[in-house]
Protein backbone atom coordinates (compact mmCIF):
# COMPACT_ATOMS: atom_id res chain seq x y z
CA UNK A 1 0.00 0.00 0.00
CA UNK A 2 2.56 2.45 1.20
CA UNK A 3 4.88 1.27 -1.48
CA UNK A 4 2.36 2.09 -4.23
CA UNK A 5 1.71 5.54 -2.85
CA UNK A 6 5.42 6.19 -2.73
CA UNK A 7 6.05 5.10 -6.29
CA UNK A 8 3.13 7.19 -7.52
CA UNK A 9 4.33 10.28 -5.78
CA UNK A 10 7.82 9.60 -7.12
CA UNK A 11 6.43 9.41 -10.62
CA UNK A 12 4.51 12.62 -10.14
CA UNK A 13 7.66 14.26 -8.86
CA UNK A 14 9.61 13.14 -11.87
CA UNK A 15 6.98 14.38 -14.25
CA UNK A 16 6.74 17.78 -12.65
CA UNK A 17 10.51 18.04 -12.39
CA UNK A 18 10.84 17.23 -16.05
CA UNK A 19 8.26 19.78 -17.10
CA UNK A 20 9.84 22.39 -14.84
CA UNK A 21 13.19 21.82 -16.45
CA UNK A 22 11.62 21.92 -19.88
CA UNK A 23 9.94 25.19 -19.03
CA UNK A 24 13.20 26.56 -17.71
CA UNK A 25 15.08 25.66 -20.84
CA UNK A 26 12.37 26.92 -23.15
CA UNK A 27 11.89 30.30 -21.58
CA UNK A 28 14.24 32.89 -22.94
CA UNK A 29 14.50 36.03 -20.74
CA UNK A 30 12.33 37.97 -23.16
CA UNK A 31 9.63 35.31 -23.03
CA UNK A 32 9.72 35.22 -19.23
CA UNK A 33 9.26 38.96 -19.11
CA UNK A 34 6.33 38.76 -21.46
CA UNK A 35 4.75 36.09 -19.31
CA UNK A 36 5.13 38.26 -16.22
CA UNK A 37 3.62 41.20 -18.03
CA UNK A 38 0.56 39.22 -19.04
CA UNK A 39 0.18 37.93 -15.47
CA UNK A 40 0.07 41.53 -14.26
CA UNK A 41 -2.42 42.45 -16.97
CA UNK A 42 -4.59 39.46 -16.21
CA UNK A 43 -4.35 40.29 -12.51
CA UNK A 44 -5.51 43.81 -13.14
CA UNK A 45 -8.43 42.64 -15.24
CA UNK A 46 -9.58 40.17 -12.57
CA UNK A 47 -9.15 42.65 -9.73
CA UNK A 48 -11.35 45.31 -11.33
CA UNK A 49 -13.97 42.83 -12.62
CA UNK A 50 -17.08 43.37 -10.48
CA UNK A 51 -17.94 39.70 -10.67
CA UNK A 52 -14.43 38.62 -9.66
CA UNK A 53 -12.10 40.53 -7.34
CA UNK A 54 -14.04 43.79 -7.34
CA UNK A 55 -11.25 45.20 -5.17
CA UNK A 56 -12.32 48.73 -6.12
CA UNK A 57 -15.50 48.23 -4.09
CA UNK A 58 -13.31 48.80 -1.04
CA UNK A 59 -9.85 49.99 -2.10
CA UNK A 60 -8.51 52.94 -4.03
CA UNK A 61 -6.10 51.35 -6.45
CA UNK A 62 -4.10 52.43 -9.46
CA UNK A 63 -6.24 54.28 -12.05
CA UNK A 64 -9.52 52.66 -10.95
CA UNK A 65 -12.51 55.02 -11.09
CA UNK A 66 -14.95 55.57 -8.19
CA UNK A 67 -13.21 53.44 -5.58
CA UNK A 68 -14.75 52.68 -2.19
CA UNK A 69 -12.92 53.53 1.03
CA UNK A 70 -13.71 50.60 3.30
CA UNK A 71 -10.14 49.30 3.06
CA UNK A 72 -6.84 51.19 2.85
CA UNK A 73 -5.58 52.43 -0.55
CA UNK A 74 -3.37 49.79 -2.17
CA UNK A 75 -0.06 51.60 -2.62
CA UNK A 76 3.66 50.89 -2.03
CA UNK A 77 2.91 47.22 -1.79
CA UNK A 78 6.50 46.09 -2.39
CA UNK A 79 7.69 48.27 0.41
CA UNK A 80 4.93 47.22 2.78
CA UNK A 81 5.15 43.53 1.93
CA UNK A 82 8.80 42.55 1.48
CA UNK A 83 7.49 39.00 1.72
CA UNK A 84 5.21 38.61 -1.29
CA UNK A 85 3.70 35.42 0.12
CA UNK A 86 2.19 37.47 2.94
CA UNK A 87 0.47 39.71 0.43
CA UNK A 88 -0.93 36.67 -1.35
CA UNK A 89 -2.10 35.32 2.01
CA UNK A 90 -4.01 38.51 2.73
CA UNK A 91 -5.90 38.12 -0.54
CA UNK A 92 -6.39 34.39 -0.09
CA UNK A 93 -7.92 34.80 3.38
CA UNK A 94 -8.00 38.21 5.09
CA UNK A 95 -9.64 36.69 8.17
CA UNK A 96 -6.36 35.00 9.13
CA UNK A 97 -4.94 38.36 10.14
CA UNK A 98 -8.21 39.93 11.22
CA UNK A 99 -10.93 37.38 12.04
CA UNK A 100 -13.53 40.13 11.81
CA UNK A 101 -12.35 41.49 8.46
CA UNK A 102 -15.03 42.51 6.00
CA UNK A 103 -12.66 41.63 3.15
CA UNK A 104 -13.92 38.46 1.45
CA UNK A 105 -11.70 35.37 1.81
CA UNK A 106 -11.15 35.06 -1.94
CA UNK A 107 -9.12 31.85 -1.82
CA UNK A 108 -10.68 30.08 1.16
CA UNK A 109 -14.19 30.64 -0.21
CA UNK A 110 -13.11 29.81 -3.77
CA UNK A 111 -14.24 33.12 -5.20
CA UNK A 112 -11.09 33.18 -7.33
CA UNK A 113 -8.88 30.40 -8.63
CA UNK A 114 -5.35 29.98 -7.31
CA UNK A 115 -4.02 31.27 -10.63
CA UNK A 116 -6.21 34.33 -10.49
CA UNK A 117 -4.93 35.05 -6.99
CA UNK A 118 -1.34 34.64 -8.21
CA UNK A 119 -2.03 37.12 -10.98
CA UNK A 120 -3.72 39.62 -8.70
CA UNK A 121 -0.80 39.36 -6.29
CA UNK A 122 1.61 40.06 -9.15
CA UNK A 123 -0.48 43.05 -10.19
CA UNK A 124 -0.96 44.51 -6.69
CA UNK A 125 2.79 44.09 -6.14
CA UNK A 126 3.44 46.61 -8.92
CA UNK A 127 1.39 49.30 -7.14
Amino acid sequence: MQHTAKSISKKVMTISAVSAIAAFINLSPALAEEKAATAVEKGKAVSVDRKKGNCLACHAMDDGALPGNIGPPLVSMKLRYPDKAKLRDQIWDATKRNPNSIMPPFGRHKMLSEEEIDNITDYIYTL
Partner: protein
Amino acid sequence: MKKLLTATLALGLLGAFTLPAQATPQEDLEKFQSYYYKRFPDTPKGDFINGVYSIDAASREQWESIEEFPPYELNISKGEKLFNTPFKNGKTYADCFENGGIGIAHRYPFFDTNGGEIITLELAINRCRQANGEKPLKYKKGAIADIGAYMKYTSRGETINIVIPDDPAALAAYELGKKVFFAKRGQMNMSCADCHIHNAGNLIRADKLSPGLGQPTHFPVYRSKWGGMGTLHRRYTGCNKQVRAKPYKAQSPEYRALEYYHTYMSNGLESNGPGARK
Protein backbone atom coordinates in the same frame (compact mmCIF):
# COMPACT_ATOMS: atom_id res chain seq x y z
CA MET B 1 -3.69 35.53 31.54
CA LYS B 2 -1.47 36.40 28.64
CA LYS B 3 -3.87 34.70 26.28
CA LEU B 4 -6.73 36.68 27.71
CA LEU B 5 -4.82 39.89 27.36
CA THR B 6 -4.01 39.22 23.73
CA ALA B 7 -7.63 38.36 23.06
CA THR B 8 -8.92 41.59 24.57
CA LEU B 9 -6.26 43.57 22.80
CA ALA B 10 -7.27 42.08 19.48
CA LEU B 11 -10.90 42.87 20.19
CA GLY B 12 -10.02 46.42 21.08
CA LEU B 13 -8.41 46.83 17.70
CA LEU B 14 -11.53 45.85 15.85
CA GLY B 15 -13.07 49.24 16.36
CA ALA B 16 -15.59 50.91 18.53
CA PHE B 17 -18.44 48.45 18.26
CA THR B 18 -18.27 45.15 20.05
CA LEU B 19 -21.18 43.30 21.57
CA PRO B 20 -20.93 41.98 25.09
CA ALA B 21 -22.02 38.36 25.21
CA GLN B 22 -24.66 38.97 27.86
CA ALA B 23 -26.71 42.11 27.51
CA THR B 24 -30.36 42.94 27.89
CA PRO B 25 -32.17 44.28 24.83
CA GLN B 26 -32.27 47.67 26.56
CA GLU B 27 -28.47 47.62 26.97
CA ASP B 28 -28.05 46.57 23.34
CA LEU B 29 -30.28 49.44 22.28
CA GLU B 30 -28.38 52.10 24.20
CA LYS B 31 -25.09 50.87 22.86
CA PHE B 32 -26.37 50.64 19.29
CA GLN B 33 -27.82 54.13 19.24
CA SER B 34 -24.99 55.88 21.04
CA TYR B 35 -22.51 54.31 18.61
CA TYR B 36 -24.16 56.15 15.72
CA TYR B 37 -24.61 59.37 17.67
CA LYS B 38 -20.84 59.38 18.27
CA ARG B 39 -19.97 58.33 14.74
CA PHE B 40 -22.19 61.00 13.19
CA PRO B 41 -22.17 63.90 15.65
CA ASP B 42 -23.51 66.31 13.02
CA THR B 43 -26.68 64.31 12.41
CA PRO B 44 -29.56 65.33 14.69
CA LYS B 45 -30.77 62.21 16.53
CA GLY B 46 -34.22 62.26 14.98
CA ASP B 47 -32.79 62.49 11.47
CA PHE B 48 -31.52 58.91 11.23
CA ILE B 49 -34.97 57.96 9.92
CA ASN B 50 -33.81 59.34 6.58
CA GLY B 51 -31.32 56.54 6.04
CA VAL B 52 -28.20 57.35 4.07
CA TYR B 53 -29.47 60.90 3.46
CA SER B 54 -29.09 61.60 7.18
CA ILE B 55 -25.33 61.41 6.75
CA ASP B 56 -24.79 62.40 3.13
CA ALA B 57 -25.32 66.07 2.37
CA ALA B 58 -24.27 65.52 -1.25
CA SER B 59 -27.20 63.28 -2.17
CA ARG B 60 -29.70 64.76 0.26
CA GLU B 61 -30.73 67.69 -1.86
CA GLN B 62 -31.63 65.55 -4.84
CA TRP B 63 -33.57 63.18 -2.60
CA GLU B 64 -35.49 66.04 -1.01
CA SER B 65 -36.60 67.23 -4.41
CA ILE B 66 -37.77 63.68 -5.21
CA GLU B 67 -39.75 63.63 -1.96
CA GLU B 68 -41.61 66.76 -3.09
CA PHE B 69 -43.35 64.72 -5.78
CA PRO B 70 -42.98 61.30 -4.22
CA PRO B 71 -42.92 58.33 -6.59
CA TYR B 72 -44.85 56.29 -4.00
CA GLU B 73 -47.91 58.53 -4.00
CA LEU B 74 -49.67 56.35 -6.54
CA ASN B 75 -48.88 53.29 -4.43
CA ILE B 76 -50.43 54.90 -1.37
CA SER B 77 -53.67 55.54 -3.23
CA LYS B 78 -53.68 52.04 -4.72
CA GLY B 79 -53.08 50.71 -1.23
CA GLU B 80 -55.89 52.77 0.20
CA LYS B 81 -58.27 51.47 -2.42
CA LEU B 82 -57.27 47.87 -1.80
CA PHE B 83 -57.54 48.43 1.93
CA ASN B 84 -61.09 49.68 1.63
CA THR B 85 -62.31 47.14 -0.93
CA PRO B 86 -64.46 44.53 0.85
CA PHE B 87 -63.52 40.84 0.68
CA LYS B 88 -66.01 38.45 -0.94
CA ASN B 89 -67.60 37.95 2.47
CA GLY B 90 -68.25 41.68 2.80
CA LYS B 91 -65.68 42.33 5.53
CA THR B 92 -62.63 44.56 5.07
CA TYR B 93 -59.09 44.81 6.37
CA ALA B 94 -60.33 47.40 8.85
CA ASP B 95 -62.22 44.64 10.66
CA CYS B 96 -58.97 42.78 11.40
CA PHE B 97 -56.97 45.61 12.93
CA GLU B 98 -57.11 47.79 15.99
CA ASN B 99 -58.52 51.22 15.28
CA GLY B 100 -59.65 50.03 11.88
CA GLY B 101 -55.99 49.76 10.82
CA ILE B 102 -55.42 53.52 10.91
CA GLY B 103 -52.34 54.87 12.67
CA ILE B 104 -51.26 51.50 14.04
CA ALA B 105 -48.78 50.16 11.45
CA HIS B 106 -45.80 51.53 13.40
CA ARG B 107 -46.52 49.03 16.19
CA TYR B 108 -45.30 46.21 13.98
CA PRO B 109 -43.50 43.88 14.34
CA PHE B 110 -44.65 42.73 17.74
CA PHE B 111 -44.31 39.50 19.66
CA ASP B 112 -47.62 37.74 20.09
CA THR B 113 -47.34 35.92 23.42
CA ASN B 114 -50.43 33.80 22.71
CA GLY B 115 -49.19 32.39 19.42
CA GLY B 116 -45.55 32.55 20.55
CA GLU B 117 -44.35 34.26 17.37
CA ILE B 118 -43.45 37.58 15.80
CA ILE B 119 -46.20 39.24 13.80
CA THR B 120 -45.06 41.64 11.09
CA LEU B 121 -47.40 43.99 9.26
CA GLU B 122 -47.28 41.92 6.08
CA LEU B 123 -48.00 38.73 7.99
CA ALA B 124 -50.97 40.40 9.69
CA ILE B 125 -52.30 41.54 6.31
CA ASN B 126 -52.17 38.02 4.92
CA ARG B 127 -53.60 36.45 8.08
CA CYS B 128 -56.49 38.88 7.76
CA ARG B 129 -57.06 37.78 4.18
CA GLN B 130 -56.92 34.11 5.04
CA ALA B 131 -59.29 34.56 7.99
CA ASN B 132 -61.72 36.00 5.47
CA GLY B 133 -61.31 33.24 2.92
CA GLU B 134 -59.00 35.13 0.58
CA LYS B 135 -55.71 33.91 -0.88
CA PRO B 136 -52.52 35.31 0.71
CA LEU B 137 -50.56 37.92 -1.25
CA LYS B 138 -46.92 37.56 -2.31
CA TYR B 139 -44.67 39.04 0.34
CA LYS B 140 -42.01 41.16 -1.34
CA LYS B 141 -43.78 43.52 -3.74
CA GLY B 142 -47.06 44.36 -5.38
CA ALA B 143 -50.37 44.69 -3.53
CA ILE B 144 -48.92 43.85 -0.11
CA ALA B 145 -46.36 46.65 -0.39
CA ASP B 146 -49.07 49.09 -1.54
CA ILE B 147 -51.37 48.21 1.37
CA GLY B 148 -48.38 48.46 3.72
CA ALA B 149 -47.47 51.84 2.22
CA TYR B 150 -50.97 53.15 2.89
CA MET B 151 -51.07 51.79 6.44
CA LYS B 152 -47.62 53.17 7.23
CA TYR B 153 -48.63 56.50 5.77
CA THR B 154 -51.41 56.76 8.33
CA SER B 155 -48.79 56.12 11.04
CA ARG B 156 -46.40 58.84 9.98
CA GLY B 157 -45.10 60.84 12.90
CA GLU B 158 -45.86 58.15 15.47
CA THR B 159 -42.99 57.00 17.66
CA ILE B 160 -41.59 53.52 17.22
CA ASN B 161 -41.69 51.64 20.49
CA ILE B 162 -41.24 47.92 19.97
CA VAL B 163 -41.71 46.03 23.23
CA ILE B 164 -40.00 42.78 24.16
CA PRO B 165 -42.49 41.14 26.51
CA ASP B 166 -41.27 39.28 29.58
CA ASP B 167 -41.45 35.91 27.89
CA PRO B 168 -38.51 33.59 27.17
CA ALA B 169 -39.83 32.94 23.66
CA ALA B 170 -39.86 36.67 22.89
CA LEU B 171 -36.32 37.06 24.14
CA ALA B 172 -35.26 34.03 22.08
CA ALA B 173 -36.79 35.61 18.97
CA TYR B 174 -34.94 38.84 19.72
CA GLU B 175 -31.67 36.94 20.18
CA LEU B 176 -32.18 35.12 16.88
CA GLY B 177 -32.66 38.44 15.10
CA LYS B 178 -29.52 39.83 16.68
CA LYS B 179 -27.62 36.75 15.62
CA VAL B 180 -28.80 37.13 12.04
CA PHE B 181 -27.70 40.77 12.04
CA PHE B 182 -24.18 39.94 13.22
CA ALA B 183 -23.57 36.62 11.45
CA LYS B 184 -21.07 36.59 8.61
CA ARG B 185 -22.68 34.70 5.77
CA GLY B 186 -22.32 33.81 2.15
CA GLN B 187 -19.41 33.41 -0.20
CA MET B 188 -18.29 36.95 0.64
CA ASN B 189 -18.47 36.26 4.37
CA MET B 190 -20.18 39.49 5.39
CA SER B 191 -22.71 40.45 8.03
CA CYS B 192 -25.28 43.23 8.12
CA ALA B 193 -23.13 44.72 10.88
CA ASP B 194 -20.02 44.70 8.67
CA CYS B 195 -21.67 47.13 6.28
CA HIS B 196 -24.23 49.02 8.37
CA ILE B 197 -22.40 49.26 11.72
CA HIS B 198 -18.65 49.02 11.21
CA ASN B 199 -18.64 50.74 7.83
CA ALA B 200 -21.68 53.02 8.03
CA GLY B 201 -20.78 56.21 6.20
CA ASN B 202 -18.00 54.55 4.21
CA LEU B 203 -18.16 54.06 0.49
CA ILE B 204 -18.60 50.66 -1.08
CA ARG B 205 -17.61 51.57 -4.59
CA ALA B 206 -19.79 54.66 -5.21
CA ASP B 207 -22.49 53.80 -2.63
CA LYS B 208 -22.44 55.30 0.82
CA LEU B 209 -23.47 52.76 3.46
CA SER B 210 -26.41 53.84 5.60
CA PRO B 211 -26.44 53.51 9.39
CA GLY B 212 -28.36 50.50 10.72
CA LEU B 213 -30.17 52.92 13.00
CA GLY B 214 -33.29 54.27 11.29
CA GLN B 215 -33.25 51.77 8.41
CA PRO B 216 -36.60 50.09 9.07
CA THR B 217 -38.53 53.28 9.95
CA HIS B 218 -39.40 54.23 6.38
CA PHE B 219 -40.42 50.89 4.87
CA PRO B 220 -41.95 49.89 2.54
CA VAL B 221 -39.81 51.80 0.09
CA TYR B 222 -40.14 52.90 -3.51
CA ARG B 223 -36.79 52.21 -5.16
CA SER B 224 -35.94 53.51 -8.58
CA LYS B 225 -33.75 50.45 -9.03
CA TRP B 226 -36.82 48.27 -8.49
CA GLY B 227 -39.09 50.59 -10.42
CA GLY B 228 -41.63 50.13 -7.64
CA MET B 229 -42.34 49.42 -4.01
CA GLY B 230 -40.74 46.71 -1.94
CA THR B 231 -41.07 45.46 1.59
CA LEU B 232 -38.28 45.34 4.17
CA HIS B 233 -37.84 41.64 3.52
CA ARG B 234 -37.31 42.36 -0.17
CA ARG B 235 -34.44 44.65 0.83
CA TYR B 236 -33.03 42.02 3.21
CA THR B 237 -33.11 39.57 0.31
CA GLY B 238 -31.17 42.00 -1.88
CA CYS B 239 -28.53 42.68 0.77
CA ASN B 240 -28.05 38.95 1.34
CA LYS B 241 -27.78 38.23 -2.38
CA GLN B 242 -25.20 40.90 -3.01
CA VAL B 243 -22.77 39.08 -0.72
CA ARG B 244 -23.77 35.78 -2.37
CA ALA B 245 -25.50 34.55 0.75
CA LYS B 246 -28.63 32.46 0.38
CA PRO B 247 -31.48 34.76 1.36
CA TYR B 248 -34.03 33.49 3.87
CA LYS B 249 -37.62 33.36 2.68
CA ALA B 250 -39.66 36.53 3.12
CA GLN B 251 -41.54 36.17 6.43
CA SER B 252 -39.36 33.23 7.47
CA PRO B 253 -38.67 33.01 11.22
CA GLU B 254 -35.17 34.38 10.53
CA TYR B 255 -36.28 37.51 8.67
CA ARG B 256 -39.12 38.14 11.08
CA ALA B 257 -36.64 37.90 13.96
CA LEU B 258 -34.22 40.16 12.09
CA GLU B 259 -36.98 42.73 11.59
CA TYR B 260 -37.87 42.49 15.28
CA TYR B 261 -34.29 43.16 16.42
CA HIS B 262 -33.64 45.74 13.70
CA THR B 263 -36.81 47.73 14.44
CA TYR B 264 -36.35 47.51 18.19
CA MET B 265 -32.96 49.17 17.67
CA SER B 266 -34.80 52.16 16.18
CA ASN B 267 -37.08 52.61 19.20
CA GLY B 268 -37.70 56.26 19.96
CA LEU B 269 -37.49 57.32 16.32
CA GLU B 270 -40.39 58.48 14.21
CA SER B 271 -42.19 56.16 11.86
CA ASN B 272 -41.91 57.80 8.42
CA GLY B 273 -42.86 55.22 5.82
CA PRO B 274 -43.21 54.88 2.96
CA GLY B 275 -39.86 56.17 1.67
CA ALA B 276 -38.14 56.78 -1.64
CA ARG B 277 -34.67 55.46 -2.38
CA LYS B 278 -32.48 55.09 -5.43
